[in-house]
C-alpha cells in the first residue's frame, strides 16, 4: 500500500517537475508546480510529517503559487523567447551537467546508512513540532518572523508605483 502510494506520488512529482521546466506558457508551469507540491504533501504524510504536509498545502500551494499566478497575470507574461538567446548552447551544457549532478547526489545519498528507526507516537504532529518550535528553535522562530516583516515592508515599498514614491520623496 505504502509502496503504491509512494510510486504514484513520485511519478506525479516528476511529471510535474518536468512540466515546470518544459512548459511553454508560464501558467502551465505554475500549474505543474502545483501538482508537484501536492504530490510532495502526500509524500510528507507517508513520512510521518503531518503538520508539514498541511503547511505545505496551505503556504506553498495556497499562497505562493497563487502569488505566482497573480504576477503572471499582472505581467501578461507571454512567450517572449523569440529572440535567439545569446547563450545558445545552454541546454547542451545544462542537461549533461544536470545528469552528472543527479548521479552524484544519488550515489552520495545511497551511501548514507538509512535504517529507519522507530518513531514515537505523535512524531511530526502539530503538538510535537510546536513544542520544538517554541522550545529549541525559539530564536530562529523569532528571527523568521522578523524576516517576514522585512519581506512585507520590502514588498510594499517595491510594489508602490514610482510616481507616488517620488512624490513622497519630494514632499520631504
Amino acid at each position, binding site marked *: 500500500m505504502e509502496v503504491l502510494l509512494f510510486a504514484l506520488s513520485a511519478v506525479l512529482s516528476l511529471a510535474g517537475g518536468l512540466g515546470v521546466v518544459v512548459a511553454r506558457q508560464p501558467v502551465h508551469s505554475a500549474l505543474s508546480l502545483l501538482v508537484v507540491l501536492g504530490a510532495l504533501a502526500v509524500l510528507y504524510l507517508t513520512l510521518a510529517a503531518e503538520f508539514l504536509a498541511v503547511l505545505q498545502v496551505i503556504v506553498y500551494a495556497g499562497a505562493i503559487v497563487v502569488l505566482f499566478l497573480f504576477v503572471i497575470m499582472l505581467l501578461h507574461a507571454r512567450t517572449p523567447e523569440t529572440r535567439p538567446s545569446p*547563450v545558445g548552447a*545552454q541546454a547542451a*551544457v*545544462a542537461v549533461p*551537467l544536470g545528469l*552528472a*549532478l543527479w548521479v*552524484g547526489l544519488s*550515489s552520495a545519498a545511497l551511501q548514507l546508512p538509512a535504517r529507519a528507526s522507530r518513531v514515537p507516537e505523535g512524531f511530526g504532529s502539530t503538538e510535537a513540532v510546536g513544542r520544538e518550535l517554541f522550545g529549541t528553535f525559539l530564536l530562529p522562530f523569532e528571527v523568521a518572523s522578523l524576516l517576514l516583516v522585512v519581506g512585507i515592508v520590502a514588498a510594499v515599498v517595491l510594489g508602490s508605483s514610482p510616481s507616488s514614491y517620488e512624490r513622497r520623496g519630494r514632499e520631504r
Partner: protein
Amino acid sequence: MGAWAVPWVVALPLAGALVNGLWGGRLGRRGVSLVACLSVLGAFLLSVALTRDLVASPGAEDRTVRLFEWIAVGDFRIPAALVWDRLAALLALVVTGVGFLIHVYSVGYMAEDPDYSRYFTYLNLFVASMLVLVLGANLLVLFVGWELVGLCSYLLIGFWFERPAAAAAGRKAFVVNRVGDAAFVLGILSTGSLLGTLDFREMARLLGEGGGGLRGHPALVTSALLLFAGATGKSAQLPLYVWLPDAMEGPTPVSALIHAATMVTAGVFLVGRLWPLFEAAGPVLPWVVAPVGAATALFAATVAVVQYDLKRVLAYSTISQLGYMFLALGVGGGTAAFFHLTTHAFFKALLFLAAGSVMHALHGQIDLRRLGGLWKSMPFTFLGFVVGAASLSGIPPLSGFWSKEEILHAAHGSGALWLVALGTSFVTAYYATRATVLAFLGDPHSPGRPHDPPAAMAWPLAGLVVLSAVGGFLGAKWLGAPFHAFLGPAWGGHEAPAPDLGAVALAVAVATAGVVAGWLAHRGRREPQLGPVRRALEAQWGVEALYEAAVVRPGQALAHLLSEAVDLRGVDRAASALAEVVVRAGSTIRTWQTGNVRQYAAGLLAGAVVLFAYWVLR
C-alpha cells in the same frame, strides 16, 4: 677641565645645527644667529680651556675620551673615541676660532637671504664634522668626519641650488672628492690589515721604536700612497684640484671657512696625524708628497695670474698654498707646515671676507675687469685686502712671511724643490698684487654706491687683520716661539729653525720683486697681453681639457648608453611587456563577464559538480 669636556666641543656645534635645522623657522633670524654663533663660540672657549690644561700639565698628555664601543669583531676593536693632543688642539682652535669669526660675518652677509636658517644649520654641521675629523682618535672616526665635511661642502657649495652652476659645482666637488675617498678607504683597509690597528697612538707606538721590520715595507708604502691620494682629493692637489675653483659658486663665507681655512687643510692634517706612518714609508714623503706639493704650488700660482673672477684667484691661491704645506711635510718640516696652515687660515679667510664685502656692496659683482677704484669708497675693506695680500706674498713682518720663510728653510736641502718654492713665491706676490690693483686701485667706474661693510661683517674682518698682521710672531724665535714650543713635541721636539739671514733676505727680495712686477704690469689697471702664454694659462695647462676628454666624455657616453640602451629599451620594455601581458589577460577574462545570470549559474553548477565528484570519489 677634564677629559669630559672634549665631546662637548663637538656636541655644541652639532646641537646648534640640530636646533637651527629643526626649529630654525620658529626662532627667527636673531634666534638662529645666536644659536649658531654661540655654539661655535662655546666650542672655541672650551678648546681654549682644554688647551691651557694640556700645556699646563705636561705629564698627562693626550686626553682620550672613549665614547662607545663601535666595532668589535673578535679581537679587532674600534671604539668611537676622541683625543685631545697638541695637534688636535691646534686644529680645533683654528676651526672654532676662525669659524666663529666667519659665523659672525655670515650674520651680516646672509642677512637678506631667505634660507637663513638652512645656511646656519649647514655651517654648524660643518664645524661639528670638522671637529670630529680633527679630534678623532683613530682612522675610522677621522674618516667619518672626513665624509661628513665632504657632505657639508656639497650642501654649502650648492646652497643656492636653483642656480644650475651652483648645483653642478656641488656635484663636481662631491664626485672628485669621491675619487680621493675611494683611495682613502683602500688606504685605511691596507693600514688596518698591515698594522692590526687604526688607533693613532697604537700606530705611533708600533712604528716608533725602530718600527720592527715595517720600515720601508712595500705594504706600508702602498698604504701611505693611498692615504695621500685621499688627502690630495680633499686638499685639492694635482690632479684632484678641479673642484675647488668651481666651488666658489657657494656663498663667500663658505669659501672662506671651508675652502680656505679648514676643510681643505684636512689632507694636510691627515698627513700630520699619520706622521709615524709616512715617516716609516720610505720614499713616499720626499719623492711623492713633496714634489706633488711643489708642482701644485707652482701650477696653481701661474693659473691664478690670468683669472678674472676674484674668488677664483683666491681659490687657485689656496691650492697653491696647500701645495706649500705638503711640500713642507714632504721635506720633514711638520711644524712649518702647520704653522703655515694657521697663518694661511688667517690671511686667506681675511682675503675671502674682504672679497665678500666687495660682492655684498656691489650686488655680487666680482669680475676684476669691472671693479676698480674701491680704495676710496671702501677704505676699510681695502686695508684688509692689502694686509691679506701682503701676508700672502710673504712680506715681513706679516704672518705669511714667517711661515713661508720656515717652509723655504726646510726645503733648502732639496735643491730643485727649493727653487720651485722660491719661484712660486714670486708668482704669488705677482698675482696678489695684480688682484689688489685691479680690484681696488684706479678710478671708480662700477655702478652703485660701494660702501664699507656693516658692523657684523666689519668686526670679523678687523679681527682677521690683526691676526694676519701679528700672528706670525708666534713663530718668532726672539719671542720664545710659542707656536713651535707648543707643537714641537708632537714631532718629537723640534726647535724653531735658526734663521739664516741670507736665505731670508733672498726670500724677501723675491717676494718684493713679485710685487713690483705686478705693480708695473698692471699699473692703471692694464692687463698685459702675454700672448700664447696667456692662452696656456687660461686653459690651466690643459688639465681641464684632459679631464674633459678622459673622464667627462666617456662618463657621459656611458651614462647615455645606459639610459638609452639599457634603461629605455631594456628595462622599460620589460616593464611595459609585463603590463601588456596583464592587460591582455584582463581583456581575455573580461569576456567571461557577460552579465548573463544563467551563464553564471551554469558555471556554478559545473563547479559544484566537480567538487561533488571529487568528494564522492574520494
